[in-house]
């Protein structure tokens, strides 16, 4: 479980001006929930994830992951997928996926079994010995996801992980992510600027305001799992949710323009 209690974050820009990105955000993400955070650009979405992961400290307020207060260290069993490519180009796919287990000096047999299992899960079995530069963007995303899953994270933070992909690849990855989530049951917090993506995946969508940001809306997505991501857009519930969230988000965009 993740809780944010009146969290704020103020940056100091290079010119010395303080910028309040995160105003006052409180939220609770329950165990096993899939939450998407959407909001206008600059509202500190990534900052919130960074603070949950312990990469940055909040200016005020407290963050707890699994009951433990997050300080400067990365909380245990937390996975983080960045928008940027974080696959190591000098390792093969297998070596990349096994990296986390190497860090914890797991026995070789265990590492190999785990890699096999994850590659099957992510449909990468045939590319185990390939180097990242031989893979497509979508495949590299899968490798990054496998790298993270290898250390059995209970919490997964995803920072616009599919932002740079085309719709076709993206939809397939949505389907796979939902499958993996349903099989492994992590708590997921994902940031996206793509409202369709948010409603497709999440059990709850949180809408943040323009900076200094606060929570504007928490929309529970009532569409039951397992969801067929290829059919979802025809579902009238999907459209209703999109419209409800857009009403709030659109006003923010208008105000910012």
């Amino acid at each position, binding site marked *: 479980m993740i809780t944010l209690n009146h969290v704020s974050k103020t940056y100091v820009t290079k010119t010395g001006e303080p910028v309040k990105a995160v105003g006052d955000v409180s939220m609770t993400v329950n165990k096993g929930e899939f939450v998407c955070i959407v909001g206008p650009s600059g509202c500190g979405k990534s900052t919130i994830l960074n603070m949950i992961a312990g990469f940055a400290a909040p200016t005020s307020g407290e963050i707890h992951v699994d009951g433990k207060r997050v300080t400067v260290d990365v909380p245990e069993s937390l996975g983080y997928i960045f928008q940027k490519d974080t696959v*190591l180009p000098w390792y093969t796919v297998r070596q990349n996926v096994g990296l986390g287990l190497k860090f914890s000096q797991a026995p070789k047999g265990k590492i190999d079994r785990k890699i096999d299992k994850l590659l099957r899960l992510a449909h990468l079995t045939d590319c185990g010995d390939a180097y990242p530069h031989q893979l497509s963007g979508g495949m590299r995303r899968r490798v990054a996801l496998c*790298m993270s899953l290898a*250390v059995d994270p209970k919490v997964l933070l995803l920072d616009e992980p599919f932002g740079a992909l085309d719709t076709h690849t993206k939809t397939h990855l949505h389907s796979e992510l939902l499958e993996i989530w349903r099989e492994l049951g992590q708590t997921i917090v994902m940031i996206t600027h793509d409202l369709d993506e948010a409603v497709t995946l999440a059990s709850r969508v949180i809408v943040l305001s323009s900076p200094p940001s606060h929570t504007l809306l928490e929309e529970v997505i009532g569409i039951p799992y397992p969801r067929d991501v290829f059919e979802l857009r025809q579902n009238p519930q999907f459209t209703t949710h999109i419209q409800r969230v857009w009403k709030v988000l659109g006003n923010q965009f208008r105000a910012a323009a």
Partner: protein
Amino acid sequence: MSSEPAVQTLPQDALSPQVSATPQRKPSAGRVRVVVCQILILVLFLGLWEVLTGIQWMQKNSIFDPFFISRPSLIAARIWLWLQPGRNSIWPHLAATLYATGLGLGVGVTSGFALGVALAQSKFWARVLNPFIIALNSTPRIAFVPLITMLFGLGFASKVVTSWFVVFFLVFFNTYKGANSVEQELVNFCRTLGGRPMQILWRVRIPTAAAWTFASLPNAISFALIGVVLAEFVGSTTGMGYIMTTSLATLNATDMFASITILSVLGVGLVYLLRAVEARLLHWSAEFRND
């Protein structure tokens, strides 16, 4: 992906013409034409040199005097003579130069790499040492050659120290830049995988830095060779530089050109050797993607 690994944006060394001479695997029609033109230019250049220095009027009234610029045929004959064993053999001199170059290069690359990585670990010390490094780097390094010769005497030690000195800074700067070019996201990602700072250093920072180090090696090789030959100019009784200063003393242009030719072949050979090693070690990098 939107972001490419740092290695793909390695600084291109405009100063190393050897690199552009790397053969490509798939010869195309254009490639053949390029090679033909290159050979033509070479033949034309050597042919003119040979013919013009053979004309008596030219010898008297222009620069085309074999006494000053020798002749390709004489140079080739001299190299052939030098390659034979015996009193005139070049091998001991070549070996002396090569040995000092290899040692200076090895020590220079190793120490430059180690210090580059080490300094990148501490923002504080990087800031403290910054002005000194800039000062040392912007002083022409060959200005230190007489001092080095004074300190380390005539001969082997001076040669190695000189080539170390010129190679070190080059490799150090590139490695330092490379180690700093590691993206924070990548480091943070590895932290979430449970990586401790030392593990991230070994598996992430050092490989990234190494790719940048490799990019500096063609220049490092030239620098090492230049350093050794310079030290041999200033004070030595062996080596290619010694042959060249001796030929200056005896006004022997053929010996000079023969030495220059041998040195340039040596330099190109070393760079090609490096490319082979690099292609094996950095096969994952974009530069070798189509090999």
